[in-house]
């Protein structure tokens, strides 16, 4: 007993104050890639290197449409390594959680030279990929009102590699200590206000996810975690995979990353119940330009 107390005393308080204070992130942490579209003279090497096709090309005649999807991105940095024009840099940014799936996609258009390199950038815009609708404004307010401060979460692994579970588990450690925010993990969906779902949703887990969703009382929110949960990620389209979380149940917040670090998860959870504002909007981050 004395050993336990003395160890606790000598350890002191180790808990972070995030999100009140900024996250402590190593300068070497690989976060989201940032692309200077105007400088991008050729998207092909990056698209070729990307393991998840987060950068994809569609050439039509002398025009090229480049889609950048942060919902597929695993922050691996292969694109920045392969790109020859120096347009891609890996940033430290991780707080990319969004309410609408299309906020994670950007589409750039270029004219093409004969050798397949880009002419001047014609336009960059937010993706218009239509996905399942998030909640209506009224529903968000109701959720915030009913669930706003304290929250019970049921975690559902619908097919992940277990990487996301490691980081979600870390939210319970003394550093991130989720309970300081009045949030805890519940053992049953019947006790939960929120489902935190990792994916991709496998064919063999589809029914279990649906049953878990139906067992969760209303009002409820669903957060899709990680590249695979948002889009299927590295596993792509497969005979064994039904699809992203959003293809099986309605999703309210998407948290990119592979896996998302604990602070990113926390941000997504708090956005879902209206306790934090979304910071990322494709072209803009914290109301400042991001992609350009």
């Amino acid at each position, binding site marked *: 007993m004395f050993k336990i107390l003395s*160890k606790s005393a000598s350890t002191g308080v180790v808990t972070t104050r995030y999100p009140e204070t900024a996250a402590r992130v190593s300068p070497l942490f690989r976060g989201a890639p940032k692309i200077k579209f105007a400088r991008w003279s050729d998207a092909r090497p990056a698209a070729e290197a990307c393991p998840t096709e987060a950068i994809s090309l569609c050439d039509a005649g002398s025009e090229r449409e480049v889609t950048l999807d942060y919902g597929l991105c695993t922050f691996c940095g292969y694109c920045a390594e392969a790109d020859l024009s120096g347009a891609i840099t890996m940033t430290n940014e991780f707080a990319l959680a969004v309410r609408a799936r299309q906020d994670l996609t950007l589409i750039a258009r270029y004219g093409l030279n004969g050798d397949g390199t880009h002419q001047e950038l014609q336009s960059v815009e937010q993706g218009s990929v239509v996905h399942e609708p998030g909640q209506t404004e009224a529903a968000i307010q109701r959720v915030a009102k009913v669930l706003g401060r304290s929250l019970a979460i049921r975690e559902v692994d*619908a097919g992940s590699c277990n990487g996301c*579970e490691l980081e979600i588990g870390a939210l319970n450690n003394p550093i991130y200590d989720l309970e300081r925010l009045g949030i805890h993990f519940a*053992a049953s969906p019947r006790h939960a206000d929120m489902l935190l779902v990792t994916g991709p949703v496998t*064919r063999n887990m589809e029914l279990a996810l649906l049953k878990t969703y139906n067992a969760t009382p209303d009002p409820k929110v669903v957060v899709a975690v990680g590249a695979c949960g948002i889009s299927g990620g590295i*596993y792509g389209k497969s005979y064994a995979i039904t699809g992203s979380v959003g293809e099986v149940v309605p999703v309210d917040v998407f948290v990119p990353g592979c896996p998302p670090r604990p602070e990113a998860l926390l941000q997504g959870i708090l956005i879902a119940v209206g306790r934090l504002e979304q910071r990322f909007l494709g072209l803009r981050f914290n109301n400042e330009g991001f992609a350009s």
Partner: protein
Amino acid sequence: MSESRYDWAAPWPSTSHGVEAYLDVPRELIPGALAALREHHSARLTSVFCEDRVMTEQCFYNYYVLESPAQRAYLVLRAGIPASDPVFPSVSAAFPSANWQEREIQDWFGLTAQGHPNPRRVALHDNWPDVHPLRKEFSAVAELPFAGEQHVYRPTLGEGVFQIPVGPVHAGIIEPGHFSFSVAGEPILYLQLRMFYVHKGIEKRFEQLPVGRCVALAESISGDSSFSHGVAFCQALETVAGLEIPARAEAIRTILLELERIYNHIADIGAIATDVGFVIANAHASRLREMLFVLNEGLTGSRLLRGMVCPGGVRRDWNREQVVELSETLRQFETEFRDLMDIIESSDSTRDRLEHTGVLPTEQARELGVVGVAGRASGIDRDVRRDHPYAAYRHWTVDVPVYTEGDVLRRMMVRVKEIGGALFLIRALLASLTDGAHRVPLPPLEQGRVALSAVEGWRGEILHWIRTGPNNRLERCRIKDPSLNNWPALVEAVKGNIVPDFPVINKSFNLSYSGTDR
């Protein structure tokens, strides 16, 4: 062809890691061959898998991967199975470790394992139509209807006997699988497992992607073993290409393999403590794991060590400050780790819950082909790092802790000892870290080459087997996670224990669902 062509008692061809001996054996001789190899060389059947070569050779091949520490080698038996007669003799009754793997072959390739004691579906659940996804003609992106019946669990009969169904969605933050406990009062009579809920078609996916992109896929086989699986895969490519990686890259890989071992072991020690109600120990253990995650991030850019290994070496070199940071953090970690073990070991009630709980006897462990931490706690003195060294393990001796009691306590003690060994090894590697290149380019891969790669992940033996195809793609990639060998051991270890002890027994194995299900 007659049996006399083969002398199973003869020494195995001398090989080095990655250059295994292959032997073509008629399918009907396989059961006898495996039994003879087990008898003469204490060979362990570690993986059984199939390959579809119908388009080029009008047949399938079954591969039987054996390992013998006495011979210090892997031996691969290959049996051709004509497409016109797609059956092979099952060896599961004599080699329980083949049970799930033979059923995978039935599900994925449509071959029949004749005489299998339990030939039901395993990887494709009962509601799948009659398809065989790993056959070449099967489209990787096929959308299939749900069909067939619900899974029927074996009934449990007797007065006062009942079943407790658990999962696939579990109460904790863990992966999905279904456990059906048959109990009489509190003691567990029998546990039925149903896995493959997170089957993602990863082996098929490897055939779709160019090899460069496959590294990220290998890192996503099992999240807590990202680095080990990444290394196993890259080693296979390097073997095919005949590529030697620089000494510095080998050292960095080895250090990170050991770091992965430490961060998982410390988390498991904490989790075992939690499951017997010793929460404060877990608070410290999870704090220590976080310390290592922060270190991982500073060394590789990823808390789970992802995006670091690449064919030909590692993607990032370390500067002086990173090396200092690494040794400083480990020094601090070691002090705190000793404090933690001091706290755990001075608790008699904790020891009381862990000792004699979830016992897996040596004989059973051997019969089931149990690997890694669980094997070493049950007297199975095997470790790929020592028996079939790769990377920098070729130049260092690895101490392999072995216990014979096979209970939860010993599975924890193996981890404790291995953390000590890993810290020692990392320090030695850092002290002898030489300057030089950290990666060399991988040349284009020749078509039709095969390679087997083995890595001792923190759970145990990871195997990757590849065959290269045209255009820098793979024709086949077989993944064997240690969990695939070890799940049946959990079934044995829980027998006779009370239900409330199941979580701690399960945690002491801590097997990967995603690695098993792929």
